[in-house]
């Protein structure tokens, strides 16, 4: 749904690659998982525990919690408050959270 401004294109030295549901995605150093996700074609972050409806980042400032995603080593966190780092593995949260080790 979003694209980078052209003056930032191609500056490879300022990018890292993260993984969203196993697919590599190029991110700008210093940006968040949510802002990276919004440049991917399927830019939704989770499905709800109640009806299974898709949700995407809505507020980008940590108050709506619609961008909750499973981040490796951190558990279910707000993607808009999580900075990217090289190799970070992120998964869309499907429905209710399952019990299991997260951190």
């Amino acid at each position, binding site marked *: *749904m*979003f*694209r*980078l*401004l*052209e*003056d*930032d294109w191609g500056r490879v030295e300022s990018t890292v690659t993260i993984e969203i549901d196993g697919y590599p995605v190029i991110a*700008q150093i*210093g*940006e*968040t998982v949510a*802002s990276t996700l*919004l*440049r991917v074609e399927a*830019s*939704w972050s989770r499905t*709800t525990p*109640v*009806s299974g*409806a*898709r*949700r*995407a*980042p*809505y*507020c*980008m*400032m*940590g*108050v*709506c*919690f*619609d961008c*909750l995603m499973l981040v490796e080593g951190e*558990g*279910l*966190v*707000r993607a*808009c*408050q999580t*900075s990217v780092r090289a190799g970070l593995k992120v998964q869309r949260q499907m429905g209710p959270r399952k019990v299991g080790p*997260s*951190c």
Partner: protein
Amino acid sequence: MLRPDLLIVGAGPAGMSAAIVAARAGLKVVVVDEQPTPGGQIWRGIEANAGTSRGRALGEQYCSGLATVRTFRECGAVYWPSTRVWQVESTLGTYVTGPGGTRVVAPRLVLIATGAQERPAPFRGWTLPGVMTVGAAQILLKNPGSVPSEPVWIAGCGPLALLYAHQLIRMGGVVAGFLDTRPSTPLRETLQLAGRAALRSSRELAKGASWYAELYCRAGRYVPDVVDLQALGTDQLEGVRYRTAAGRVEEIRTSLLLVHEGVLPELHTVRSLGCEIQWDAGQAAYRPVLNEWGECSHPDILIAGDAAGIGGAVAAVHRGRLSALRILQRLGKVAAEPEMTEENCRAALAHALVLRPFLDRVFRPREQVFAPDDDTIVCRCEELRARDLCAALSGSVGSNQLKAFTRAGMGPCQGRQCGLTVAALIAAAEGRHMSEVQPFRVRPPLKPLRLCDLAGLADESRSS
């Protein structure tokens, strides 16, 4: 356990300004902020953007934040970025979790400078991917510098919607259309308020007018008097149906809609402490009950910036300084800078607020924001529609009972998105004024907390 003189929650204009005054006067200050860099929402990413073409496009007021951020970095306050405050006890014991793990801080005084959040304004389909707030899009403009990939539709009311459209156009983005949800204000009243404001703040007023003019000329379409919106689509936004005050209904095709209906003080921490709040009819928002220094009903807690009532960044700077001056007074210190006096701060604050009555009146949200139709999801987390909540509203039911009956406000956002609407539905059902309805009680943890973060407290208690 760290025992500073002052703990400040939030490193936006108010928090940083207070920290600078307090730390320079010799107080031990700790500033906790959720973002990785200082600046708050308004000056987000300023250190990276200043001096770049992006910084210039974001504008003069944005760039003006750099000086404050630099001074803050050097003022001597301990700064914990990327750190969440998840509980403040009434004895001021404060629990925070960040890159350094979980810590407890026991300050002598607390200043809450948590800023604002956008007003949740439910309409049918507002939970669909493709519907976002204007504030969210502006955050993306600041970091990483993203713009909507196609010409964008904006629906809203408030200075931020106009500012974003202006910044986007300057950066080469395209506004496909603007659905103006601002209710028309009686011309006479508008002119009176504008006249009064123009005497002292003509430049700001002219800036706002030029944003409107630009939007009028550059947006593909400009539709005034929009009273109702509906987002269409199943898994993703496909279109928007809107209705104007005259009853005209139209549909447009788009995969991205940005919405905005003003901003509210972020009161989660304040309310978790049971600090007294009141309904501010002018701003159509709850705000804390404060004296002229920002002191609230809790004797050792002060509140500054937009969390104290919406006033904008410049007012936030001066409110932060005033609260810091009061803190110095209470702890027997004096400000290091001779010009940092109560009188100067009050004069600057009054000037910064000159335009506010005009802005509050002209951008007062439309009635429909408080009265969603039956089919609209009110609680995004628990997916409860207005009709589900209204059905549970028999007899005299307060917010907290309604929460217990329906689960509204029990999801991960903890009522940040539905609290105000729930209060408005209760007020409407019972024929009461908003001032007579209490929003949900707020309980810790204020932010998501993992068991391992909680367990980290054991190390903390051993080390102290």
